[in-house]
């Protein structure tokens, strides 16, 4: 079985973003970028399935600017076999990404597609579900366990009240939650080897997909800043403040 994993280049999760002075967007100049943490988990899961002999090939795909090839190289260093880069400098919304991925699914015919449940920049949490709808495949979102069993996959999902397990026919779409696995670090020899692995560059036009969206970003603002309050010296003082100043007790 072939596994397709989608990865996204985003701001590093440790970086606190700033809003541009003209409020047109956030400022990403000279900001450290990395693979979206949920995508790292997706790559790790695919590679583990290959190591277990469930998968035979892992293909990583990204939609993004030229620099996003760094994240594909990371995926290759972590164990993906080859990569597809759909290059674009535009701001591509989840729907367009899902449409492009649907074309790749059509071409590659994977048994399983694994994506992160959300990207930590837009926090959309949409692409996997949209891809499932467009390809008419079942979905197991927010996965904390993935067990392939013959022509089915059991996915345990993190839902609001606890955990839910669903059985899906293959091929299927899975999106990862944080507790699915702990991604490995790429080792230096693997990083060297990754440079020689095949990486195909395409454009959205190659797939005949229109990436323009009907959603316009009008402005971006900083949220109301919370001012730090005071330190209290004792439990008694805390209770007094909560009762008499904040009036929440």
């Amino acid at each position, binding site marked *: 079985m072939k596994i397709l994993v989608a990865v996204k280049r985003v*701001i590093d*999760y440790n970086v606190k*973003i700033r809003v541009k002075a003209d409020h047109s967007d*956030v400022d990403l100049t000279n900001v450290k970028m990395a693979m979206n943490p949920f995508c790292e988990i997706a790559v790790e899961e695919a590679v583990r399935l290959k190591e277990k002999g469930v998968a035979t090939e892992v293909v990583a795909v990204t939609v993004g600017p030229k620099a996003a090839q760094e994240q594909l190289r990371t995926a290759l260093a972590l164990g993906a076999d080859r990569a597809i880069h759909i290059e674009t400098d535009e701001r591509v919304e*989840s*729907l367009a990404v*899902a449409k492009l991925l649907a074309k790749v699914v059509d071409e590659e015919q994977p048994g399983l597609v694994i994506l992160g*449940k*959300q990207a*930590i*920049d837009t*926090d959309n*949490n*949409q*692409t*996997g*579900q*949209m*891809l*499932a*709808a467009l390809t008419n*495949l*079942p*979905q197991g*979102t*927010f996965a904390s366990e993935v067990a392939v069993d013959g022509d089915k996959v059991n996915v345990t*999902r993190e*839902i*609001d*009240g*606890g*955990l*839910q*397990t*669903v*059985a*899906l*026919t293959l091929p299927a779409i899975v999106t990862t*939650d944080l507790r699915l696995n702990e991604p490995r670090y790429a080792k230096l020899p693997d990083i060297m080897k990754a440079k020689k692995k095949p990486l195909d560059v395409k454009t959205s036009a190659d797939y005949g997909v229109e990436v323009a969206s*009907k*959603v*316009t970003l*009008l*402005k*971006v603002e*900083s*949220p109301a800043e*919370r001012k*730090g*309050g*005071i*330190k*209290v010296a004792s*439990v008694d003082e*805390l*209770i007094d403040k*909560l009762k008499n100043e*904040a009036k*929440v*007790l």
Partner: protein
Amino acid sequence: MSILVLADLHEGQLAGATAHVVAAAQAIGGDIDVLVAGEGVQAAAEAAAKLDGVSKVRVADNAAYAHQLAEPMGALLVELAGDYTHVLASASTTGKNVLPRLAALKDVSQLSDVIGVESADTFLRPIYAGNAIATVKSDDALKVITIRTTGFDAVGTSGSATTEAVDFVADNAQSSFVKQELAQSDRPELGGAKVVISGGRGMGNGENFKLLDGIADKLGAAIGASRAAVDAGFVPNDMQVGQTGKIVAPELYIAVGISGAIQHLAGMKDSKVIVAINKDEEAPIFQVADYGLVGDLFEILPELESKL
């Protein structure tokens, strides 16, 4: 304008989130219908009919919608969406699971986690873990939106909407329900609680979370946790507060042994009053706390419990 709200269910009953989503629908303006879909959902439908501002409750009560699996729910929404300009659901794990399927099949974008309504086509939503707020305008013919419930006060329950059965039954040979393990708790729901007390890695182990129980009992609080506490197995995943867990905005949030990473703050920084208990006076949580108490939680918690 005409708006369809997908009702959230919790063990077959109407979940509190739906009253907040109806409030968001009122902010948009227009006729509001609620869709209750599931198996054995008559009681939930009756509860939805009492929500203020709702004209009609559409009830799809069929085994096909049991557990609200994404594939049949998506098909059902596609079937009904033609009658509406907006389809809304809460940004619960069900809303997030189902709504993007509708958007994709209708070839429109989705706006996730909306916290404010400027007009029928312009909305506010947090991005980058809430470190920026985007104002976005959608020119799509159908607006598909998930609502962050903390952004809207719940509507009241003095309404009397009509109910109407939906006959459409989606076929689904692709996915099936296997099992569900729901955490049982007598405490209020995290999302709706007036007081939340959360423990982090500093709690040390799951057993120590009992130190929060007595305080939660006295304050009628829900208990939450940081990701570190969940990952370490101290408590189950549904207690996680943050960017990728629950978003809460109670009157009082007490963070115990939590350092205050941006991903955690994303889930609680809109709380009215924040208290932090941490032994490290440099911990970033103190930058957002109204009242900080520096010290060892193992001494502070028992004292707090006894003095409340």
